[in-house]
């Protein structure tokens, strides 16, 4: 072509349009715009303040000795010496017991609800039960746990007492903790399973594998990040709970002597405290008035929660699915996480 397209040179005067000018809106709309900004900034400010406050207080009161020494035994006055090693151990023990019970149970139930779910009325009932479990306050679950573990035949879980069993031990507390972590794990696993495309299952069935085998060897490994995220969320919930501890773990600041002669089990049958109950008892609301210790313990607790939060973010971001699915999962987990945590 003789008059081949001679592309015109790009212009010199280029304008990049600004965002919509709010100043042109009517007054009422501008007010609401301002309200939105204020709310958003307020949210930021509150969160920032909480973190900074705890940081300042925690750093000023936290000494390494606190982490390594046990609380002064029996004494209510914690002001002088003694740290919170026992409560830290208690937290770890309860979390471990709770997670060990909840994780397999949660994954199993989630698999049943997603892959089998027969008969359907039963599946719906179980689904509603899990939802309801998520909605029951943990203090009520603790009350139920106390009745349950006070029964005489369950003395092996805690210790004997005047009528039936004592009902308070790490095992008892851990078991009820499992109940509050369960809905989170079930939700996360189900979300992961439902996000898997059906062709994965079809491929496995076409090779002659059963549903059980498929679930165990194909599906569950594929959703490991989801399961992990759910478990970590459950752990976060367990770590932060105080009500169950108060009811089911007794009030001794230190870990009591192991009950019976079995090595680990004996320890678990005993009572003790966790960081949450330690913070409570050392605050002005509890008996102790050592609020420096309370701040220090609370700071350690907050660090644990932050670490778990960070872990969940990493797990959901580096999932194998696309970014859209990952953010959906994160949002859903944020909802469950935010909605299922108290006391």
């Amino acid at each position, binding site marked *: 072509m003789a008059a081949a397209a001679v592309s015109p040179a790009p212009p010199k005067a280029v304008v990049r349009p600004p965002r919509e000018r709010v100043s042109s809106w009517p007054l009422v709309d501008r007010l609401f715009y301002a309200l939105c900004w204020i709310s958003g900034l307020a949210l930021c400010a*509150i969160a920032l303040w909480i973190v900074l406050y705890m940081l300042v207080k925690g750093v000023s009161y936290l000494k390494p000795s606190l982490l390594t020494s046990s609380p002064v035994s029996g004494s209510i006055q914690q002001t002088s010496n003694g740290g919170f090693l026992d409560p830290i151990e208690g937290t770890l023990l309860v979390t471990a017991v709770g997670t060990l019970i909840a994780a397999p149970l949660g994954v199993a139930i989630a698999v*049943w609800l997603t892959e089998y779910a027969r008969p359907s009325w039963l599946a719906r009932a179980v689904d509603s039960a899990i939802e309801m479990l998520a909605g029951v306050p943990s203090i009520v679950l603790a009350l139920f746990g106390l009745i349950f573990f006070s029964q005489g035949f369950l003395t092996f879980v805690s210790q004997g007492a005047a009528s039936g069993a004592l009902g308070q031990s790490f095992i008892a507390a851990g078991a009820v903790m499992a109940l509050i972590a369960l809905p989170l794990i079930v939700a996360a696993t189900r979300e992961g399973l439902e996000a898997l495309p059906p062709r994965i299952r079809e491929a496995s069935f076409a090779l002659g594998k059963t549903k059980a085998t498929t679930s165990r060897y194909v599906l569950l490994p594929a959703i490991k990040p989801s399961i992990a995220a759910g478990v970590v969320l459950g752990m976060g919930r367990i770590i932060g709970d105080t009500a169950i501890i108060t009811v089911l773990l007794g009030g001794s600041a230190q870990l009591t002597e192991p009950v019976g002669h079995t090595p680990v089990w004996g320890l678990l049958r005993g009572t003790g405290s966790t960081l949450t109950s330690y913070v409570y008892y050392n605050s002005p609301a509890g008996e102790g008035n050592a609020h420096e210790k309370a701040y220090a313990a609370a700071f350690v607790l907050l660090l644990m929660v932050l670490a778990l939060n960070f872990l969940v973010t990493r797990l959901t971001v580096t999932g194998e699915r696309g970014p859209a699915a990952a953010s959906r999962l994160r949002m859903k987990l944020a909802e469950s996480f935010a909605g299922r945590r108290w006391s």
Partner: protein
Amino acid sequence: MRGGVLQSLRSRRRNDGGRRSTPASGAAGDRRAELALGALGVLVLVLIGAMVVTVAIKAWPSFRYNGLGWFGPGAEVDTELRAMRESAPLKGHGLLYFTAWPLLWGTIVTTLAAVALALVVSTFAAIFLTEFAPPRMRRTLDPVIRLLAGVPSVIYGLIGILAIAPWVDQHLLSESRKKSVLYVVQLNGENLTTGTLILTVMILPIMVAITASALSSVPPAWREGSVALGVNRWRTIRRVSLRTVWPAVAAGTVLATARALGEAVMLAMVAGSTPFAANPLDGLTFLFEPVRPLAATIFQESEGLTIGPLSHTIYAMGAVLLLSAAMLSLAGWAVKQMLVRQGIRA
């Protein structure tokens, strides 16, 4: 060959529509696995049922003794509880005498106020997050919200009792106000307002998360269509987006209410030292009166679970909480049905 095809057709019809397309060899094992897994699900069902039954049984004596008066006003809650603890019944009543009205009132006021406040603030914050915030701010706010959601309630309680309550005591509560009600109750920083405000902060993250996620899934075609018609962004949000997401907001509200209802530790630390029925007729003083909601009371009295009458009373409180939790679950289910219907319609 034909027989084989007919055979497999017949066996396929026998299945009840599940995804069973496996040969016979693994089917037995599959059936076992299904039963085992199903049993675990049933276990949870049984546990919930057992919980409801046992709590009800333990609570029954208290309800039977007090009848409907259990929910009403009467003597002071603290006095009644102390009577139970010391086995010294109040004049004219048995040991099981209990009137829970101050607790119920405290629960209702704190929960409703916190949820209402959180609803308003979270809606604006969610709109800010999805529409008006600069992208960098949006990215930082996301982990911030998750952080707020993750803070344990005992830490909220600690900050409340050591930092916020003293501030309220010093700056918002005047000496004259304290003196004016001295004969009835002691006013300090641990009161209705402090408790409600912190409770609001605790339930904000759930609602912001849910509302923001719902807002960002409003079809962009609607938003673009509205903007192309010359309607500014705020009006678009108000008239199109909010209208579309209100079921999700309702679901979030139900979730938040359940959370607020069950909050025991923070409120026990911060909302007040006495279970007092805050009186709105007191005017502004109402805001500074102490309250003790139901869950917080259970938490406070949990050492008394070994004493007979006290334990029945505590379980009665637990039963009330359980009932409210069940009703909220039902409400949540109803809202979810509405969401599903809207999803199909839209």
